């Protein structure tokens, strides 16, 4: 929070493409780079002062004419540019400059200045000069009106090269370790989605009493070695929801599979590939070949806009609207890892982060769809019977389970669609690109939309 006297106030409260600027800072840290270079299309660049102070601001002509001699370590730089100019010739100059610094190792975030109807055209345009984006999508045009209208591309040459290869999952199929407790309405549908995307499943059922175990047993029979099932704790049902111990059990299961990708998934979650043309397993294959040993996720929580979800419904079709995570604690969801020789630590962070060393985190997050409350009846059973009375007091005191404990007795779980974001399966990955692959939501929550 700043308090600004008029004489010190910036000239305008409006600035362009706020998430693109924040994304450059995200990449700076995620890739361990050293500088941000902002290529200004017009002088003076209208940037938030704090960003301008941290970035090297140069003109398009300088980028094109003197890239190698500019005194900038391009292999340690994140370059942000907008293809804005009054002439085609100047745009061409800028694009050729970007191609030059990409060749020198720069990581590039490039946007269009105005609305673009078809971002595939933008992709093709960049590709024609040798800039092959790893991601193309849309971002906010400005910090006030926030139309998702301008196109944004991420040019990460090594990643683009991997994506150009034929899709291939890791040598061993990734294994999801999933704890379940009374999830009969949704567990089969989400399990089948994961199986179809090339993920094997190991279920740890916490002695469900609603038929979940029986559904899983049937699933295991149908899918053979791809689905494992155990009841936990082995001694029988317990009164409390032993989350710490459950996380330790998950880590233990993972430790039996050195070299394999392990994904810690909750029973109401669906991990997805960030690239529509790749399965989830193939996406882990890309991350692995990129050199990563851990992958994080961005969570999108789906909220029912009508009541009555049942086991006969497909979550991806029934739930049409989502919201962002309610708490900052969801900023880190580093829950997929390539299993090292020894057991990793999952429980210290309450399951939010797989801790092990050395660890190389894939710089782009995968989307994680979350379906915690699916109908009024299921939500009330889950909240008031299966969770709140069963939480361990010490875990609550550590701030865990806050997404449940902050809900009151007067909650309703079906919402007006107007209060949520609409999920369009065909355009989601493009429209919410930065929310998906980076920490854009949390940055906005911390004030990135303000000068």
């Amino acid at each position, binding site marked *: 929070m700043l*308090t600004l*006297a*008029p004489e010190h*106030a910036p000239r305008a409260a409006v600035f362009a493409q706020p998430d693109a600027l924040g994304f450059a800072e995200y990449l700076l840290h995620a890739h361990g780079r050293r500088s941000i270079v902002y290529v200004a299309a017009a002088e003076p660049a209208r940037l938030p002062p704090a960003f301008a102070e941290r970035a090297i601001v140069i003109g398009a002509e300088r980028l094109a004419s003197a890239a190698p001699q500019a005194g900038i370590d391009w292999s340690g730089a994140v370059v942000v540019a907008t293809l804005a100019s009054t002439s085609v010739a100047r745009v061409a100059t800028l694009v050729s400059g970007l191609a030059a610094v990409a060749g020198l190792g720069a990581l590039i975030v490039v946007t269009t200045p105005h609305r673009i109807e078809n971002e595939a055209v933008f992709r093709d345009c960049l590709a024609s000069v040798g800039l092959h984006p790893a991601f193309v999508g849309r971002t906010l045009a400005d910090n006030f009106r926030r139309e998702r209208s301008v196109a944004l591309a991420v040019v990460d040459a090594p990643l683009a090269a991997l994506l150009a290869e034929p899709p291939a999952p890791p040598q061993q199929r990734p294994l999801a370790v999933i704890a379940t407790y009374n999830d009969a309405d949704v567990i089969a549908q989400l399990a089948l989605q994961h199986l179809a995307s090339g993920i094997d499943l190991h279920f740890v059922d916490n002695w469900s009493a609603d038929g979940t175990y029986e559904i899983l047993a049937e699933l295991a029979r149908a899918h053979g070695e791809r689905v494992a099932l155990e009841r936990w704790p082995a001694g029988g049902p317990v009164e409390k929801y032993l989350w710490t111990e459950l996380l330790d059990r998950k880590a233990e299961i993972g430790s039996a599979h050195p070299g394999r990708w392990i994904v810690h998934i909750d029973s109401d979650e669906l991990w997805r590939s960030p690239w529509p043309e790749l399965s989830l397993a193939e996406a882990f294959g890309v991350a692995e070949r990129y050199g990563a040993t851990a992958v994080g996720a961005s969570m999108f929580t789906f909220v029912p806009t009508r009541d009555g979800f049942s086991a006969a419904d497909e979550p991806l079709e029934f739930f049409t609207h989502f919201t*962002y995570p309610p708490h900052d604690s969801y900023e880190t969801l580093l829950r997929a890892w390539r299993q090292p020789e020894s057991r990793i630590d999952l429980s210290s962070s309450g399951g939010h982060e797989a801790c092990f060393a050395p660890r190389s985190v894939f710089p782009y997050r995968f989307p994680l769809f979350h379906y915690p409350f699916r109908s009024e009846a299921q939500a009330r059973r889950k909240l*008031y019977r299966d969770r709140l009375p069963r939480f361990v007091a010490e875990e609550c005191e550590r701030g865990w389970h806050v997404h449940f404990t902050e809900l*009151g007795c007067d909650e309703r779980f079906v919402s*007006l669609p*107007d209060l949520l974001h609409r999920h369009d399966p065909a355009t989601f990955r493009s429209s919410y690109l930065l929310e998906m692959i980076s920490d854009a939501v949390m940055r906005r*929550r911390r004030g990135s939309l303000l000068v």
Partner: protein
Amino acid sequence: MMTEDDRAAAGLLEWAVCEALLRLPPVLPPNARTTEIPLMQLLVKLARPRSYVQLGVGEGAAFVAVCSAARAYQTETICFGIDDWPDEPETLREMLGTCYPPARLLRGGPREYAAWFEDGSVDAVYLADAAAIEGVGALEPWLPKLSSAAVVAVAGIRGGGGAARIWEELAARYPVRLEPGVAAGLGVVVAGDEVPSALERLVWTCGREPNYLALIGALGDQAAALLPERDHGRANEGAARVLGELRAHADGELARLCERVMRRDYGEAFTVGAVFRAFLRREPEPIEAEYWETLAAHGTPLHELVAGFDLLPEFRAASDLRRLLTFQELNRALDAADRSAGAAAC
């Protein structure tokens, strides 16, 4: 004729309205005016403004409440509070820094800062204190800044003076408005023609059902009286006593309300009875949904059902206050409806 979908949508709107009106901001500056808070929370929830400018902030109760609502409802609103504070508002700044970073306090007059914003860019303007910020002319430079989804709220429209004159001008310019009976007066005009549909439906509903506006106004008055007491209670260990009184009071109001609701049918949609039912549906169902249905089918009095919900004591404190506010107001509204029906019969 209402379809099943219409009824479901009406129920969701009722819930959205009730929840926002009955919500208590987690923190507020002490000894602050709080009358307008319920309606401002509701506006944030339904209008989901991308940007909010408050002219006149003072100690900041309404500003903090709006910021808290923006956080709770994940509207990603950027909030600007403009006031000519004699000194740096450090305490308020610290509070906002914790509860809502996407907020800025701008020290100076509203005219000075109007140029800071682009035309057509601001979704919500709240003129909180016309007297303190240059009188009638305070809003004028902001009108071009309003977006096509804009709403404008004005406090103190019944107090005469500058705010009342501004309201007259706004009401003449923008015919779509809400004017609940909040003490000292809070008026809202819909200035844009592309406001979110939830807000459109609220305006439409209020136009059809005056009880909605009465409910909003009464809740504002109640919040003004009770919020400072709540915060005082927190600080002085008086909370238990205050909440105990609230609980007893709420139970009395509920008993009275249950009795009359059992006696008569208040119709299908958009009536106080429907609001009441929406509120009752928000109470926790005892473990199994079927339990509620079974008891209801056997005609068990509503107050016994609600008493039966007392299964989770740790979650009751906040709802006690909410219940009191709702039950009191519903009784008041029904009293008025009865009086009006009696007068018509005569």
